[in-house]
């Protein structure tokens, strides 16, 4: 699907602990003596021998997951040395974490952004600390008009829910809620397709061999951060409106 560009991470080599011959750094097994290797200090993409790209062949990923799961399974190492038993457990849990993260589109994107130096969980607090230190007002990480809109939508949603709670079997309330649901779901869908567009842009930048400081790479990264920030508000609205309809 993609032209094969060597991944510098996997090219770095190390010696097999058993036969001492040279192997790829992220190799799970020695190609010479077939021995299980200790887990490499690598990211999830490297673990699966993948480039840091966002469009992933999920079928291939799943196949590789099942194949590796069988090969590193602790049952196979029950009679091996204590060290190998531990490596098999560690490789298995790393494999599970890596697979769970990479197969999920949002988790995969968030994970990549963290690898690219973005602290998604920290961005808000970091901005607050900076504002406090400078005695300035904090720069909100999402645009003010989006906050206004989300607040307004939440108010409307609450009103509709209150109406329902009061026992109003009001057709208008139900209608308002389902209109809101359609609208929020459309917003979420459009954010998904925007995200896919950014994935494409990202993969193109990576294919050019852009390094971590490349301005294009940073620009696409930051666009994805902004999109995920916006998305978390929309996702909550969808969740809340569905709860209100189910209540």
């Amino acid at each position: 699907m993609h032209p094969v560009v060597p991944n510098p991470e996997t090219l770095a080599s190390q010696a097999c602990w058993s036969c001492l011959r040279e192997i790829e750094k992220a190799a799970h097994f020695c190609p010479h003596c077939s021995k299980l290797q200790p887990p490499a200090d690598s990211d999830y993409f490297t673990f699966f021998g993948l480039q840091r790209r966002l469009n992933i062949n999920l079928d291939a990923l799943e196949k590789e997951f099942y194949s590796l799961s069988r090969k590193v399974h602790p049952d196979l190492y029950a009679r091996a040395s204590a060290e190998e038993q531990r490596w098999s457990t560690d490789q298995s849990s790393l494999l599970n974490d890596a697979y769970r993260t990479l197969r999920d589109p949002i988790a995969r994107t968030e994970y990549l952004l963290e690898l690219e130096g973005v602290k998604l969980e920290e961005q808000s607090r970091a901005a607050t600390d900076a504002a406090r230190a400078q005695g300035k007002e904090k720069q909100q990480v999402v645009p003010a008009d989006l906050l206004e809109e989300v607040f307004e939508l939440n108010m409307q949603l609450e009103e509709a829910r209150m109406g329902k709670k009061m026992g109003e079997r009001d057709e208008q309330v139900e209608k308002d809620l389902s209109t809101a649901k359609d609208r929020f779901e459309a917003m979420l869908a459009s954010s998904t397709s925007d995200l896919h567009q950014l994935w494409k842009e990202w993969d193109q930048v990576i294919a050019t061999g852009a390094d971590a400081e490349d301005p294009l790479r940073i620009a696409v990264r930051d666009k994805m951060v902004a999109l995920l920030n916006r998305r978390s508000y929309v996702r909550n609205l969808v969740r809340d409106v569905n709860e209100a309809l189910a209540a």
Partner: protein
Amino acid sequence: MAYSDKVIDHYNNPRNVGTLDKSSGQVGTGLVGAPECGDVMRLQIKVNPETQVIEDAKFKTFGCGSAIASSSLATEWVKGRTVDDALTIKNTDIVKELALPPVKIHCSVLAEDAIRAAIGDWKKKQGVTAPAAVEAVKG
């Protein structure tokens, strides 16, 4: 996750939920959000123009129990303080008071942001006099 008793108390009996007149010159409004969880919080203050004391505060928060408790506590704490004094409230004070776990720290950050944003909005409304006052404090 277990919430502390104080969080549960504020969540069940939130103080100062409501709205102040956004267009009033004495009222400052802060609308802030936490992208980590998608919560939004609006905090409003009403300031006495003579004394600069915050005489009333209201909030409305769409978010988890910790976010509601943090903003409820924030309104209690700013009431009766001068605006400059209210600016000294830090998110870590809220974390301590409510015994928030690490995963809920961003809720306290949101409450501090809301206080600062509301005061910032009020200062803007006071026009040219506000920056001068800030300079005087610094000097």
